[in-house]
């Protein structure tokens, strides 16, 4: 075994196989941890959604399906490039690994960029919870939905306002935490890129890329659920 490989082989392991299986299991446990972490948020969403089904529908129509849809596509594409990066790392092709990582990085930044466009429009519409939150129906469809909501349920305007704030609190908590995970991912790619270029990864040792891939796919998974649950409610009213 070359001295180069020795450096990558931690002393506590007996073989590369054991090392790879251990890090993979460790990363999956971390993913399990992440599932439960976001799970708490989804539980909060569920509870408030079933308590305020009608108001959440009207609130959801405030979000842009176009931007949300584009972002979904961007993320799925980045998941593909990430899977390819792992594959290239397994094959020991450093340069190609780096290229796919770079593509993933660009797509990830694209996602965050689009997200910030969405956030700034929410800011302009006074839809940031806790900061002088005030919701107004902004097009004919919403005005109609709003009037119907008041007529059928007898909710006061104040009541509806407060539940709108609840929806946007959940929205910002969920998407904000998701975006934070994206940013952490971007940071990790920047750490991986030079290592890939130095050709550190091969069939024996590619755990960092593989584990990061698992993380990136998980972040994608969260969005796959967030998109329909937040953006697509009440499109059929």
């Amino acid at each position, binding site marked *: 075994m070359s001295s180069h490989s020795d450096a990558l082989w931690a002393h506590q392991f007996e073989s590369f196989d054991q090392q790879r299986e*251990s890090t993979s299991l460790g990363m999956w446990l971390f993913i399990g941890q992440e599932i*439960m972490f976001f*799970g708490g948020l989804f539980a909060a969403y569920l*509870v408030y959604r079933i308590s305020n089904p009608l108001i959440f529908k009207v609130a959801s129509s405030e979000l842009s399906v176009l931007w949300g849809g584009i972002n979904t596509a961007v993320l799925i594409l980045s998941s593909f490039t990430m899977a390819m990066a792992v594959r290239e790392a397994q094959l020991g092709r450093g340069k190609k690994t780096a290229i796919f990582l770079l593509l993933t990085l660009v797509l990830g930044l694209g996602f965050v960029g689009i997200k910030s466009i969405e956030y700034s429009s929410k800011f302009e519409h006074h839809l940031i919870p806790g900061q002088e939150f005030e919701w107004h129906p902004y097009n004919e469809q919403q005005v109609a939905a709003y009037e119907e909501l008041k007529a059928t349920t007898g909710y006061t305007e104040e009541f509806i306002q407060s*539940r709108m704030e609840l929806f946007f*609190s*959940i929205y910002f908590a969920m998407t904000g935490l998701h975006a934070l995970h994206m940013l952490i991912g971007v940071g990790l790619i920047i750490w991986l890129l030079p290592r890939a270029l130095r050709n550190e990864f091969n069939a024996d040792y590619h755990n960092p890329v593989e584990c990061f891939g698992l993380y990136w796919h998980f972040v994608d998974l969260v969005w796959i659920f967030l998109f329909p649950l937040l953006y697509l409610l009440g499109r059929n009213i």
Partner: protein
Amino acid sequence: MSASTDAIAQPKTNYLNATHGLKSWLLTTDHKRIGLLYLISVSIFFVLGGLFASLIRIELATPAGDLVEGNTYNRMFTAHGVIMIFFFLLPSIPAVLGNFLLPIMIGAKDVAFPKLNLASWYVYMAGGTFTMIAMVNGGIDTGWTFYTPFSSTFSNSQVMTAAIGIFITGFSSILTGLNFVVTIHRMRAPGMTWFRMPLFIWGMYATSVIMVLGTPVVAITILLLALERGLGFAIFDPARGGDPVLFQHLFWFYSHPAVYIMILPGMGVISEIIAAFSRKRIFGYRFVAYASIGIAILGFFVWGHHMFVTSQSIYSGIVFSVLTMLVAVPSAIKTFNWTATLFKGSVSLDTPMLYALGFIGLFTIGGLTGVMLATLGIDIHVHDTYFVVAHFHYVMVGGAILAYLAGIHFWWPKMFGRLYSAFWSKISAALVFIGFNLTFFPQFILGYLGMPRRYHTYPEEFQVLNVLSSAGASVLAVGFLLPAVYLTWSLLYGPKSSQNPWGATGLEWEVADSPPTTFNFDEIPVVTADAYDYTKKEAEVV
């Protein structure tokens, strides 16, 4: 302690003197050294938490609120709870004994991720620092449970800083758990099959699963609380459609299983000690192992029993009540199997065994009162009274802390290669047992008579029982301080210990040196026998 007469052979270089200097400790990746770093930290937190407990007991010696004001009292019991639960009980056995012993017991050179292991200690210390800053800046008055909307909207204390501290500490717990699960799955020595593992490892495994899958839920809950308090989000605020009961659901989804994080490793320690000092294989080994997993899984199904008097649906209450009683089944399996192990064993009453026997008695009382509290009707009567306080102290102090002390006394010769005073340690075990019962048994009666928890004054008719309780607390304090003295003495002047002073089984006693070398074993051992093979060991002696 049975002083061994054979020549004491200890390795010249061991993990303690392999490298020198503060840096070699603060940057160590050796699981044994990290275990000792944790030992020092949790001991400091234990003293702090104990200090607050003493203040509480002094205040409650008289019915009037003459030592502190109500406001200060709120901060005192919160500090006691937060420090003891998050910074002592949760890391005590897993991070100290678990870190030190787990790799040795399964025949590995180290845990799977040594750097992550060190990181977990730093994360723990960072969380501890934040929480300490909160305490110094005036404390927190919400109770350790941080119930909303008081914590998120109304409290004027340092909730944010403390919340950040606890959020951070949670990740230390997750990292430790993750490390242990991987280590147990992937690092076992050849021949160390799942059902040859010592029961301590089974307990650690069950605990680690809860740490990894439970802790993130309380992390997100605290994060949501911080968003509401810090940024004005509407999450749990009832005025804006939020539900404070949802906070309790999410909080207890973790915090009830967290009770099992505290007790399961303790049960593992007790299994080791009962077997070693009865010189018998644990009765029903597989049942005890499965019971650990059973408790860990069932533990996730019972959290609603903390919420019987909230607006939680009565039907949920019934389901949670029945499921809670089911937890008694695996717990009883363990207790019965320990007593069955004692039966016809050649029992020797050394210090660890005294602590272990104390554990069995106190844990049984704590567990059975738990079944009482699971009953909807009784719980509504005694909810938020001293009955509950007594119940969980029987489990947490009588269970977890006694097991921790038992473990420290059992493995001390292995950890430091030195023996301690048998006489003084037995005195301390007796004082802890007597002091503990004197402190907390009166609280069962107080609670049943209706004394509510978390008040600094009480009606005069409760004074006799409260004075008894405070007197017991001082005996308990002496019992806890004694080990600090004779164990420090042992570190400096204690006679050297042989490799296996108790004549116990297990890789840590039979193969590893006292104290172990840096990589534990010269070569990875091959395991050929089941755990607790005492009959074979006795035969060898004869």
